[in-house]
């Protein structure tokens, strides 16, 4: 394995240098995704010229649209829950999502990202108005063309949360955490503490 190390290292570095030279801080100028693989079709025709090349799933899907060459001025967001669509194709200025790596602000032209969400506040900023939701967990997908899809299992506007229930839950789970024995009990109690402290912070922040 170590015999190949220099070759692998230079390959990684070479690949890295090439990639970073074309790296885009903002995702612009990506062409539309092709609906068929030209290399495959060519190779097929060489081998079996009389048979039509088979269609791949990509031929039946809508291809990824080309990213505009200049950064759009607004972000289009879709916010969906399993039982309803909260926000659909709304143009906003910024959205702050509670990613596991911290509160992440998404502006138009943001690099394409997939972020796992932790329990926390999601705020949608449009002009001077801010709409806040508390999200239990989910994912946020930022696409190259400044469309952001946020999916959550449960999300509520913050004014629907009952502070007394939150504080009671926090006290309960902190106590369960101290008295937990098995790994699973500890994990469940820890989840309870995390969710309730996030709820608490959302209400008081």
């Amino acid at each position, binding site marked *: 394995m170590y015999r190949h190390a220099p070759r692998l290292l230079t390959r990684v570095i070479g690949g890295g240098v090439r990639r970073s030279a074309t790296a885009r801080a903002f995702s612009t100028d990506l062409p539309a995704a092709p609906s068929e693989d030209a290399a495959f079709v060519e190779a097929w025709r060489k081998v079996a010229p009389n048979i039509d090349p088979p269609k791949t799933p990509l031929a039946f899907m809508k291809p990824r649209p080309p990213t505009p060459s200049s950064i759009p001025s607004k972000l289009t967001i879709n916010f969906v829950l399993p039982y309803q669509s909260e926000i659909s194709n709304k143009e906003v200025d910024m959205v702050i999502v509670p990613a596991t790596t911290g509160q992440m602000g998404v502006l138009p032209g943001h690099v394409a990202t997939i972020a796992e969400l932790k*329990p926390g506040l999601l705020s949608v900023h449009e002009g001077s108005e801010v709409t806040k939701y508390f999200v239990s967990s989910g994912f946020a997908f930022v696409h190259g063309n400044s469309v952001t899809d946020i999916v959550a*299992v*449960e999300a509520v506007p913050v004014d629907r949360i009952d502070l007394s*229930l939150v504080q009671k839950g926090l006290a309960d789970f902190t106590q369960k955490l101290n008295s937990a024995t098995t790994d699973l009990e500890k994990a*469940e109690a820890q989840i309870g503490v995390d969710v309730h402290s996030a709820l608490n912070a959302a209400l008081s922040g």
Partner: protein
Amino acid sequence: MASMAAAVPFWRAAGMTYITYSNICASLVRGCLKEPYRSEAAAREKVHFAVSKWANGKPEKSSIRSDSHAE
């Protein structure tokens, strides 16, 4: 070739899957809602299932049915 694995979240280390974690978070949030929203949310958590054990190619008589919320 990265030999460093991403830090495993505590719930995964305890043997829980992401779906279980996500569902627990969601039900905890639902439990902290104010009144009319709370009962609407409780309806969302209802799970209907029927379980039956099979023996010799036939289902045994006693099958468990649930029309209420199961966690």
